[in-house]
């Protein structure tokens, strides 16, 4: 029982990080039909922004974090949209998919060449002590991760549902043509989703890098997990991405502990195939509807 609690907490912590990544992925799809195959690399890169700021800029860790987040929002948000998505979006979905695949390769190889191929240790945001809850030893770091993710997603939900800008973004996602007629600056709303996505992946990067270390190839698995979480939960719902992310994190930890470490990676894939075949709109999604 205590084992189970420990596994559940660890699973929820990883799942919370997956959820952040999947939410960003869903947002991009909602407002601009961008399927970002580089999303995993987007999570890998911010950690290196922080490390580079510390190593080459001689900054302290907290300052480097701010620099890293700012660089992510600028490069992975604004520059990504301007240089790659904007010129491509009129060509339809496929060329953009191909370019994000190329972008993933570009980022991965870039980090490998310019920073290093070895896994880099990354300072933890919180001390790695343990607390005991109902007899189970739980890492404080995991609780912090869950807390940060919950707060982030709550703020995001509040922003999308309660503020004027957030509602304009919803309108853009649901019906861009109508939103434009109503005077919403559709282009700007789409830019906002890219910036939000960049901030979310930067946050995920800061949370996950102390656990899995920062390595150029980290994006491969993270990207796939984000897709799966988004699809399993429901591609057209932020709620769905959260549920999908948490579910995957928990399942991953339980499978590794109780079933098979060799086929640990296969379970989410089976889940993905099953969901796509039997419930393509996702567990929480509704068919033919878009909202953020």
């Amino acid at each position: 029982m205590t084992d189970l609690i420990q596994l559940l907490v660890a699973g929820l912590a990883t799942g919370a990080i997956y959820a952040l990544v999947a939410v960003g992925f869903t947002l991009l799809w909602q407002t601009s039909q961008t399927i970002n195959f580089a999303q995993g690399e987007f999570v890998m890169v911010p950690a290196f922004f922080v490390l580079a700021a510390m190593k080459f800029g001689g900054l302290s860790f907290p300052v480097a974090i701010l620099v890293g987040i700012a660089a992510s929002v600028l490069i992975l948000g604004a520059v990504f949209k301007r240089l790659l998505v904007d010129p491509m979006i009129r060509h339809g979905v496929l060329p953009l998919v191909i370019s994000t695949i190329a972008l993933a390769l570009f980022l991965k190889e870039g980090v490998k060449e310019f920073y290093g191929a070895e896994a880099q240790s990354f300072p933890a945001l919180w001390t790695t002590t343990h607390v005991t809850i109902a007899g189970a030893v739980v890492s404080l770091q995991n609780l912090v991760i869950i807390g940060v993710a919950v707060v982030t997603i709550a703020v995001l939900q509040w922003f999308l549902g309660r503020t004027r800008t957030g509602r304009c973004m919803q309108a853009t996602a649901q019906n861009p043509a109508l939103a434009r007629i109503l005077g919403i600056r559709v282009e700007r709303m789409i830019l906002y989703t890219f910036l939000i996505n960049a901030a979310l992946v930067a946050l995920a990067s800061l949370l996950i890098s102390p656990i899995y270390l920062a390595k150029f190839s980290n994006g491969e698995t993270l990207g796939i997990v984000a897709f799966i979480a988004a699809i399993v939960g429901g591609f057209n719902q932020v709620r769905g991405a959260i549920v999908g992310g948490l579910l995957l994190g928990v399942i991953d930890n339980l499978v590794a502990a109780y079933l098979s470490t060799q086929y640990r990676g296969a379970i989410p894939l089976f889940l993905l195939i099953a969901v796509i075949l039997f419930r393509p709109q996702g567990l929480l999604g509704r068919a033919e509807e878009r909202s953020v």
Partner: protein
Amino acid sequence: MSALGNSVRGIVAVAACAVLIAAPFGLKPYGIYLLSMWAVMTIAAIGLNLTLGYAGQISLAQASFVGIGAYTAAILTTHGWPFAAAFFLAAALCLAVGWLLGYPALRVQHHYLAFVTLAFTTLVFLVLRNEEWLTKGIYGISNIPRPAVFGWSTQAPRDFYFFCLGVLAVVSFAMWRLVRSPWGRAFMALRENPMRASSLGVDTRRYTLMAFAIGSSLGGLAGALYAPLVQFIEPTAFALGLSLNLLLMVIVGGSGFFFGPFLGALVSVLLPEWLRFTEGFYLIIYAAMVMVLMVYCPAGLLGLAERLLKPAAEDRSVLTQSDKDPGA
């Protein structure tokens, strides 16, 4: 099609054939190996082009079919089976697996299909890595023999290259006939306008499935050639990276163009060699080039060539519509 376009195409095709036949006599073994690799990858890319370029379905499963084909050939030939049997069995197995995967997977389309096929590729990789009793896991299978074809031993690199080239020629001819048959026209109708195709009585699902299965079996054929070419196979060669690479080949060459895969595979196989002086930067440059190409010409290199040839063709053809391309 204009007379000029056709004659340009004819000249290029004849010249390309002459180069392919003459090239191995002036090359070192490594150059011949690269050309053979080009032929093998082209076959796999032709298969993917049928799925993607003609039937319009994004598949990321092609690497797994190359893998299944390669492992089928490697396991059977190292156990003393004749190559011909292994070769056709690899193609048949991939046709069957492609059909079985496509049957449920093609219920969904576009990016969903991309994800299902992506998942399939990763699953096949896990099986290849974990089922050591069959595939020897991460240690891979080595000493894969090269075949003797009707008494002609293809042990030497040049002989094996001509064998690959021969298979490529047969595959190309078959594909040429296929895309011009009623089947091929149905495939293209699916890509251009599935709803209209369906209203004209094309059984869209059946034809998409057929394109997918045939494309998969070509992946298997390529794998069955890949194993004796490299003579050592291990699971990571058939992971997602190869699927993405094959996808890039088809797109870079020009998806939906008959010769797109030939050109795309050439770029993908030779570019690393040409860019060798850049050392580790090769993939960065390649990725940047793909992004630039997608921004300026999503139809790929052949699309770019067609766009450049078009003004010249228009002068000679009265019937050509004068739709001015704003990008040209």
